[in-house]
Structures are given as structure tokens and as C-alpha cells.
């Protein structure tokens, strides 16, 4: 996994396009078990990151990820802002401070930092596995990184993990107010997380280091 400055700007553009394409779907999922704003919130967050993509891509990778996290926190709002923001900020902090373009040589370079970042998200959301949140995508994705799975497998894992939140009963967030009626609906945060993961994996599948 070779991440150069141009790659980061391209990845940001890709994530923004993916969220834009699926914004209505994400809001529809959120309408079923929440307040219906997840698509709009995520679009706003990704638009703000996209607007800064050149400046962000010029930073060392840890600082770039921290900046992306902060922009997400300040712009997504809702419950998802602090979760995605914490994920990116902590991921940036967990990388070696001087990690630069190309310093991430393999997916398992990301496994340990991602584990730390996911733990921070869990603390922020006071959530764990099976609570019907984006964590239910993040945990299995991180496990795939530990196994050094190819990007295509990681993307497939993320999608199936998001689907698997359907039968879960929400224990956190507004969906938890519905009790058993939250069962049968995919979690919107898990869904956006899978979309972003799959988009990023698709990029790395196309741009494997030769």
C-alpha cells in the first residue's frame, strides 16, 4: 500500500464521489431507524475535505489524516462526526510522526494504528461489537488487514459486515430508542463505512505497487 501525495488527493476525491452517489440511500437507511440526515451529513463532511484536498495531500500522512478527521468533525455534525473524526485523527496520531508519502509499504503497516484508532472510536461512542454501529464494519476490516488480505477481499468483508448489521438490535444512538424495531434495517453508519472502505480498497486494487 503505497500512499503518495497524489494518491491521497485522488482517494479523497473518490470517497467524496462515493458518498455523493449514495447519499440518498444513506439518508433512507437513517430515516428507517434514526433522523434521516446521515447522507446529507456525510456529503457535507466529504465536500469540506474535498475542498481542502490539495492542502491536505501536501502534509505528511499523519498530519493529513488528523486534518481530515478535524474537518470531518467540524462538518459532519450528528453522531457520525465525532466517530469518523476520532477514527481519522487517532489513525493519524497512531502513525509514526514522520511517515510520509510512500512510507506505508504494506497493509499490515496500517493494522496496528487502525486497531488503536478503532479503540478510540469505541470509547467515543461507548460502543462495542454487535451494537449496530460502524464499529461492526471496522473490526472485521481491521482483522482482514492483520491477515494481509488483498484489497478486494477487504472490500467484500466490509460490505458483508455492513449487511450483517441488519439483524442486529441497536444498542447505541437514536436507533436504540426503537428497541426491537431497529432489527431488519442496515445501520447507516456501517453502510457509509463499508462504502468508503470499498472505495479505498478499489483504488488500491487498481494502483497496486508494481
Amino acid at each position: 500500500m503505497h500512499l503518495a501525495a497524489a494518491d491521497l488527493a485522488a482517494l479523497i476525491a473518490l470517497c467524496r464521489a462515493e458518498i455523493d452517489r449514495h447519499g440518498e440511500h444513506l439518508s433512507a437507511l437513517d430515516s428507517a431507524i434514526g433522523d434521516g440526515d446521515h447522507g446529507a451529513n456525510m456529503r457535507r463532511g466529504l465536500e469540506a475535505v474535498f475542498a481542502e484536498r490539495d492542502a491536505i495531500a501536501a502534509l505528511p500522512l499523519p498530519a493529513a489524516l488528523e486534518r481530515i478527521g478535524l474537518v470531518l468533525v467540524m462538518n459532519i455534525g450528528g453522531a457520525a462526526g465525532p466517530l469518523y473524526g476520532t477514527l481519522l485523527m487517532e489513525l493519524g496520531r497512531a502513525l509514526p510522526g514522520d511517515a510520509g508519502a510512500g512510507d506505508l509499504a504494506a497493509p499490515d503497516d496500517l493494522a496496528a494504528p487502525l486497531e488503536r484508532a478503532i479503540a478510540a472510536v469505541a470509547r467515543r461512542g461507548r460502543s462495542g461489537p454487535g451494537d449496530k454501529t460502524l464499529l461492526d464494519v471496522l473490526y472485521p476490516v481491521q482483522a482482514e488487514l492483520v491477515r494481509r488480505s488483498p484489497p478486494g477481499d477487504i472490500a467484500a468483508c466490509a460490505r458483508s459486515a455492513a449487511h450483517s448489521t441488519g439483524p442486529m438490535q441497536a444498542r447505541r444512538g437514536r436507533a436504540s430508542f426503537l428497541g426491537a424495531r431497529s432489527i431488519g434495517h442496515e445501520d447507516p453508519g456501517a453502510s457509509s463505512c463499508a462504502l468508503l472502505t470499498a472505495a479505498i480498497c478499489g483504488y488500491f486494487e487498481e494502483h497496486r505497487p508494481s
Partner: protein
Amino acid sequence: MNARADQPSAPSPANVGIVIVSHSPLVAKGAADMVRQMVGDCVPLAWTGGNVEGGLGTHVAGIAAAIEAAWSEAGVAIFVDLGGAETNSEMAVERLGPARAARVAICNAPLVEGAVVAAAEASGGSSLAKVVATAEELSP
């Protein structure tokens, strides 16, 4: 931004400040009105509600501005409604840095009743810990 310092001209700087964070600017302002009716001008008070676009929601910059507006050396007690209001408030507090963040508490109490009870306690010059404890008695 739907955030407003409901600042009196000269609040007692010794009293704990109160911040109200709701997804709805109408709820936040209404709760602040009730607090003001109860304690007059002797407690620093600010409210924020709505997302960056003015729709229902909360956002970190609005919460941070409200904390600044209600800042007191005695500390600030924050009252929130639903989940995102709490986690976004946590992010805003962390961004204050450790020294100031230690003087801010996000209360586990109902928004309206908590803010009114806390303000009444604060108006007597109680410490942040006492203000928070009094409000949190509402949520056993």
C-alpha cells in the same frame, strides 16, 4: 450559526457558567430563556442549537463558541439533549486543551430541568462539582 451568548452585561465571574446544547435552536433558546428567568443575570449563560446549515443537529464550532461565551474561571456546566449533542460537546471540550477542559463538565441530566437547577445552584456561588452533582441528582 444559531449559537448565541445570552450574556448579561456584568455576570459575576465567580459563578459557574451554563451552556445549553440542543439539536433544535428553538429548544436551546427556550431552555436558556427559562434559565434566565430563574437566575437573572448572575450566571454566565450561552446556548447553541442546529447543524452548520441551520437544520436540526449539533456542531462542534457552535458548541465551542457557546463555551467561550459562557466561560467562567469557576468552570462551565454543559447540558445536552440527544447522543450527537453529547459526543460533539466532548469534541469541543477536548479542543480546549487539558487545562481548560478540566474546568468543563458535560452533565448527565435532563436538558431543561438540569440547566435550571444547575443555574440556581451556580447563582449561589457553588463550585462546578456541586453544580454538576445537583443537576445530576435529577437522573438517578
